[in-house]
């Protein structure tokens, strides 16, 4: 009897509780949005219309948007109270990912700048 109540207060990641039409529509919206974002990403690389240095930033923004689309429409992560635990775990995961990525790039760039070997050695090991 309380099982019904319990299940409405918490929900497993990836699960949704809706009608057939709602569920299929959600996946369809996700598919269309993801395809559009992917197509945009591939387009801005193939065109020369855009300012070169800005392309990388645009690509990252599009990729993050697409990951958001996947999370919302495919994994059904929402901001609702039944999703609190899932969102908290996700937020912690994102924090660690950002720390690893930003930390590595920061430290490696710093080492590269401060401890660069003499040019001859540089050519031996890696060429930019």
């Amino acid at each position, binding site marked *: 009897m309380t099982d019904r109540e319990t299940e409405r207060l918490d929900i497993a990641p*990836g699960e949704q509780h809706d009608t057939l039409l709602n569920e299929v529509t959600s996946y369809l919206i996700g598919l269309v949005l993801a395809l559009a974002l992917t197509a945009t990403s591939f387009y801005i690389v193939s065109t020369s219309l855009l300012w070169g240095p800005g392309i*990388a930033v645009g690509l990252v923004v599009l990729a993050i948007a697409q990951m958001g689309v996947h999370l919302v429409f495919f994994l059904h992560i929402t901001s609702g109270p039944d999703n609190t635990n899932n969102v908290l775990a996700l937020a912690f995961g994102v924090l660690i990912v950002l720390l690893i990525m930003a930390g590595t790039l920061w430290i490696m760039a710093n080492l590269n700048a401060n401890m660069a070997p003499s040019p001859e050695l540089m050519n031996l*090991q890696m060429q930019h």
Partner: protein
Amino acid sequence: MSTHAAPLLDAGSADTGLGNRGPQSKAIIVPYGFWLFILSDIIMFSALFASYAALVHAADGGPTGRDLFDLRNVAIETVALLVSSFVCGLALIAAKRRNMLWTQVWLLATGLLGFLFLLIELREFGSMIMAGAGPQRSAFLSAFFALVGCHGAHITAGLLWIGTLMAQVWAKGFQAHIMRRFLCFTLFWHALDIVWVAIFTIVYLMGMAP
């Protein structure tokens, strides 16, 4: 069951917004544990991404991404994996309605699209290695094969899982524990697609960007 046991299950106060206290049902705990595994897996991928980003220019005078990558192949791979992810969601919807035929059809489609993705990827790896651009050529290529190969290995494991799942659904029907595995599989498959979004952006598109 005594009446004293009831408050344990129902003791949660709704005003915390954190749900009920006490043990949740397996239908919640199992996918949640798998969700934690997926997040850990993504953290492992982030380490591979970080090493790739640190080593991407260390081509040792050898071929760079611009010489090696073929964006047409990557586009086909991307669409195959995205549609596979979508179809995998349809399979879950069919399974929740206990429709055996469509569950199996959509799962098969998911697997075939994943297999297509894997074939294209292996062909790309093969042609790179044949051209002398294998993982031992430079630090850039080591990082490339580690990152993209690790994703490919996950896809391979996912394909094995699809086969197992189809057999289990067929043989055992839509029992609760099979449905839990089903939900975990869809989480895994969607998460792999998210990792692929990062790969095609950071590795392929940024590698080819002017």
